[in-house]
């Protein structure tokens, strides 16, 4: 457990650094000012610029207007607190922990569009589970993109090496490039059962949600896993790029339609993007955000923390002003 704590605190401090650099300005803009229409417009602009989206922003700003006319809110700070409470209430105690099978192996299916960060996220998940003392098997189901299998292989190798003696190894099951990804998924589940591995993570090829045949292929991968291990996959994680805008909503909807997404991993939150699209997604669907990706090393995966997320949403930086 000490190992996990060490890892977590490292992530936390990394997060704090970025957030401190960004945070505060909006608060200072708002504080001490009377809550008038001009100020509400500023809040609206901040939400839009965090990719929260027009519909969700209208709803949030509407509730501020309402509260103002009822006399509940009079100052800028009040509005900010009101908004934060409203947003945090969107992620109550929804299960943000990873759902594990009662009897191993647990199967986790990782999906997303091209370039959202699936393979890196898969490696991070493996590192996290490995740190918890679980043996992990990676199924390299991305048989399409050149080098994808190799990429995962490098990660498996690095993680195993890094763990050193004592820590569980990270296994890899791969198929031929251009082969059937569902077959790889089956082999991976099969190998996990026979090797007595705790968790299987299936890394799938990136696909645009507009490609019907590829979405059906994803459903096939899921079904094949279920065939080998009843109840699998126990988690279907959609990797979303925090820099993406309102299209993330479509992605969440279509992927959920195809493979019943159980959780979102919001990747690339270490840049200047706020990832506000998950607010819109939460409003439209019921999918919880489980983890966030904040860097390129295996430790850069942190549990989703609504409080910190909402704080960061209202941070403004110089780039916003200059743009």
């Amino acid at each position, binding site marked *: 457990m000490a190992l996990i704590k060490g890892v977590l605190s490292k992530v936390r401090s990394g997060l704090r650094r970025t957030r401190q650099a960004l945070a505060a300005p909006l608060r200072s803009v708002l504080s001490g000012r009377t809550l008038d229409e001009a100020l509400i417009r500023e809040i609206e602009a901040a939400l839009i610029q965090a990719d929260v989206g027009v519909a969700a922003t209208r709803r949030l700003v509407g509730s501020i207007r309402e509260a103002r006319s009822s006399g509940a809110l009079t100052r800028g700070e009040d509005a900010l607190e009101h908004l934060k409470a409203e947003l945090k209430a969107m992620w109550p105690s929804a299960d943000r922990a990873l759902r594990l099978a009662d009897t191993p192996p647990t199967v986790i299916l990782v999906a997303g569009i091209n370039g959202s960060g699936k393979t890196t996220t898969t490696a991070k998940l493996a590192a996290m589970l490995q740190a918890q003392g679980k043996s992990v098997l990676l199924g390299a189901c991305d048989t399409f993109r050149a080098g994808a299998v190799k990429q995962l292989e*490098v990660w498996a190798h690095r993680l195993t090496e890094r763990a050193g003696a004592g820590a569980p190894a990270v296994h890899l099951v791969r198929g031929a490039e251009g082969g059937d990804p569902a077959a790889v998924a089956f082999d991976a589940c099969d190998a996990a059962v026979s090797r007595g591995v705790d968790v299987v993570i299936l890394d799938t090829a990136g696909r645009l949600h507009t490609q019907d045949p590829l979405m059906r292929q994803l459903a096939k991968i899921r079904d094949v896993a279920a065939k080998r291990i009843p109840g699998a996959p126990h988690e279907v994680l959609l990797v979303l790029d925090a820099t993406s805008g309102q299209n993330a909503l479509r992605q969440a909807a279509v992927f959920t339609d195809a493979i019943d997404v159980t959780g979102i991993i919001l990747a690339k939150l270490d840049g200047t993007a706020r990832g506000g699209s998950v607010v819109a997604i939460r409003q439209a669907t019921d999918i919880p955000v489980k983890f966030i990706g904040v860097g390129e090393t295996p430790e850069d995966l942190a549990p989703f923390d609504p409080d910190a997320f909402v704080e960061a949403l209202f941070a403004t930086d110089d780039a916003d002003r200059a743009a």
Partner: protein
Amino acid sequence: MFDRIQDAIGGAYRALSGKGTISEANIRQAADDVRTALLEADANYQVVEAFCEEIVAEALGREVTRSLKPGQEFVGVVHRKLVELLSPPDGAEPGVVQVAPPPTVVMMCGLQGSGKTTTCAKLAAYLKKRGRSCLLVAADLQRPAAVDQLRTVAEQVERDAPGGARVLFYAEPDQVGAYGEAVGVAVGVCQRALKEALRERVDTVILDTAGRLHVNDELMGELERVHRAVRPHQTFLVVDAMTGQDAVHSAKAFHERLHVDGVVLTKFDSDTRGGAALSINRVTGAPIRFIGVGEKLDALEEFHAERIAGRILGMGDVVTLVEKAQEEVSEEEAAALQEKLARGEMTFDDFLKQLRAIRRMGPLKQVLGMLPGVGSALKDAQVDDKQLNRIEGIINSMTSAERRDPSLLTASRRRRIARGSASSQQEVNRLVKQFEAVSKMAKQMAGLGAIGKIKAVRQMQGQAQQLAAGGGFRPKAGTRTVSPKAGYKKRKAKRR
């Protein structure tokens, strides 16, 4: 992809065109609709604000209020503004500008996962098709297996892509490091690659750099050093078309460090509304050079502001469609077919050939989406390319005599064809009927002048929309009104 904007602007247009004269308030309302649509499309907040102020000012300044058709005037203003927003500021040519003496050095950069490596391969295929040789350089020493990925796609381009030019690959796999450990090494790799390019006398060098965050000072510094060391003639920023509000921040940061000459928008084949396209060059001043529209190596198109603006406004993208068609069908072939059509001698073989040419142009939905007026009708429709498979199957089950002369198709022959293609007899009947309709229409079209053709195309649009709505090829009886004028033209055409 711009469907939503089309809807909103279309709505504003309809609202305005219903009024004889309009007030400033009307214009503001319309501009507000446009504003909402653009924001929903992820266009940058500031860009949208400025854009809307400008169109209102311009619309009012042009005294749209007194014009007879204020709605059309307003759409004209929006269109012009969009083109202005999307156009290269200096009127630069699309594509890759070659320098003499070669090699032209192109440096690709961008965030992680934007699609740099894939774009490098597509660019190489694009150049190969135009007879220009290139050297792909693996300067991404950070992401595991990035070098392998580029090597594989480089080999694919060399082997499979059309065109005669050479496609070479340069890498130093032993220089690869874990994340953050190989910083600076890319500089040397790129310099040595450049020497290799001179030795091999290639036309173009494409540098595939590692994806990096614009706020990572160390890695941005490396990029700057590569830039200083190799002095690329063009620096392309690769941006995911689905990017939200943050697009301007990263683009701006890369532009300030490297002076970006061009932008490649990737994943344009998604259903993103693509507001990033509207923001980027307005904020950075860097023009959009290419758009990536699919996973295949040839899925890279030159960016043309007029066309995209036209698509936004529901005017369709006929220019791209025509260009694609020209790539697929040679001029002689087209001329020969034209004659056949005029004589009413189109056969199922010709039909099949056309069908295949269309399919090579891309997924059906994408192709139809370029037709004016069809895009928004297609928004929610499932256009299944598999239907085309069935049609191909049915035609393939015909004998060559039947294909030449559809009148041979008796009921028993149709039964045989249905069995042979695992389809129902109704499906065969429907195809034959459609074929007859098309060949009749083609015959009429061939005899028409330019205006008549446009009219005929308009009529087809109605049918295409119904096809898109999943209703088969035939419009329902009584839902289509033919204007007396069109009827007259048709009769006139027949008399000729």
